[in-house]
């Protein structure tokens, strides 16, 4: 049994790409495979012309793939700023000498790191919460923090697993604006897995619909809304209704 079968998917640079489908369709599995937390048993993953199928998740982050996890993963016992500083890890490699002696170049690198972290916090609107513990933030702000941590690695591609889940209408609107701004201001390509159809339709340029691990439709949001196979996957067929 496979979670995802024969999926051929191309995401263009600068696109906001939606991946939708009913529960268990294999959407998060696809993100896990692209992000490197799962390895596909067959097939290839190519990122900017380079095969990354066998790379581990930290290597993919080095290549420029950022990730916002579905389960609201954060460094919860760290402050908001510390979360960002972990996110900036790739920009400041640790040397043995720096543990015992802080040279001026190390200090200036640390200052640049701090500035980058604060800039990212400002971008997502969390500047005022920089010394707050991540665990104490409300859900919506935690999702924004997760986005900020992913942005701290300066990604080219951002994988967003249910970014607006559990948010109220106002927070959803803010997150949607934020994701659009990522593309417009930073040129980041986004792949979004989401159940909130209103958010997906307002956000994505192109959508792939999965059901039981297979692609059942692909196209613009308008085309997807009208697609018969998609409606059946979400609502069932007339036969399903009669048999129930």
């Amino acid at each position, binding site marked *: 049994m496979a979670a995802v079968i024969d999926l051929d998917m191309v995401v263009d640079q600068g696109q906001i790409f939606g991946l939708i489908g009913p529960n268990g369709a294999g959407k998060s599995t696809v993100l896990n495979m692209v992000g490197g937390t799962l390895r596909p048993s067959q097939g290839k993953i190519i990122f900017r012309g380079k095969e990354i199928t066998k790379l581990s*998740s930290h290597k993919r982050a080095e290549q420029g793939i950022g990730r916002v996890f579905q389960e609201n993963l954060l*460094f919860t016992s*760290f402050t908001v700023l510390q979360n960002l500083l*972990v996110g900036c890890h790739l920009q400041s490699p640790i040397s043995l000498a720096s543990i015992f002696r802080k040279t001026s170049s190390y200090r200036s690198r640390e200052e640049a790191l701090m500035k980058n972290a604060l800039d990212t916090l400002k971008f997502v609107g969390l500047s005022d919460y920089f010394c707050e513990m991540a665990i104490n933030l409300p859900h919506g702000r935690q999702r924004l923090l997760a986005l900020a941590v992913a942005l*701290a690695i300066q990604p080219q591609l951002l994988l967003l697993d249910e970014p607006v889940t559990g948010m109220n209408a106002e927070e959803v609107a803010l997150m949607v604006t934020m994701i659009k701004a990522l593309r417009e201001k930073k040129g980041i390509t986004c792949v979004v897995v989401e159940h909130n159809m209103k958010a997906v339709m307002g956000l994505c340029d192109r959508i792939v619909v999965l059901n039981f691990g297979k692609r059942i439709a692909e196209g613009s949001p308008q085309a997807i809304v009208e697609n018969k196979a998609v409606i059946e996957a979400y609502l069932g067929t007339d036969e399903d209704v009669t048999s129930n």
Partner: protein
Amino acid sequence: MQNKSSLASSVGWALAVVLAIVFPLALSSIYWTSVLTKIIIYVLMAVSLRTIYLVGEFSLGHVGFMCVGAYTSALLTLKAGLPLALTLPVGGLLAGFTAFSLGYPFMRVKGIYFVILTVLTSESFRQLALNWKSLTGGIDGLIGFPGAGALSLPGIGQVDFGGPNEYYYLTLSVVCVSLYLLHRIEKSRLGFIWLAIRETDKMAGAVGINVLRYKVINFSVACFFAGIGGALLAHSEQALSAMEGASFGIMTTIYLLVYMVVGGRMRFEGPIVGTVVLSLVSEFTRPVEEYQPMIIGAIAIAVVMILPDGLSIIPEKIGLWRFKSLIAKSKTDLDPKTQEGL
């Protein structure tokens, strides 16, 4: 507030070092000096064991690496005639290198699987020492290898560390330097990354942290200091045995873990407090030795239930209690009803 707490912490550390320096002179007993030497060595063992906890893992094999350091240092002095100044770091390095080699397969697993691997490794090292008769003396162990002897110290010249008091001060110096290094590492960005891995390794990997590499570095650093502890122990007793009941048995690791938990695993000073308190309890309950595991166990249960953050949290709790009582008092003073009564 932060300055005040860091000043209190510095004063606490200074006081601990002064007490450690003064105790052997005040007690002037060879027996107590040897007890204190052992306690200080176990402090290093417990603190280095806690280092592994910084990446979220518990090791039950720490004594195995202590055993590597002890036998390496003892054999190098016995068979090659090398001085302790050389065998001590070599013992630590070999323990650290062994951990580095084993770290890559071991750190791929987590939780109970890591615990099982470490305990099996530790037992394998002990069995190896027990059965490699030609090298380690087998059941008879290694006896009569030299102690620290005379060492040349820069700026001071030759100092003889052969006596129990001198060896105690040598051990204290090495342990203090080791603790300083471990503390420095923990407070550096390396320690910060270790903590991030403990929080969530999945997220750490997603931001570009090579989780396996940092975990292996952590394991190697911790085991290096376990090796140093082993070497110090070997030359303190000048006899080594790999028998079950000796220093390298599973019970020693369990005690180290208990010291860490009772003292407080979230704080650097936790294992130090735990080791000193419980080692002294063990010492004072020596007349009822057969009940010692029960006594230590009862203390551990009581601490875990009453103070889950360990004994090292007590000063902070007292400070908080005093702060709250001051606030309550100032509220009462400002209350108009109370003032009316007056």
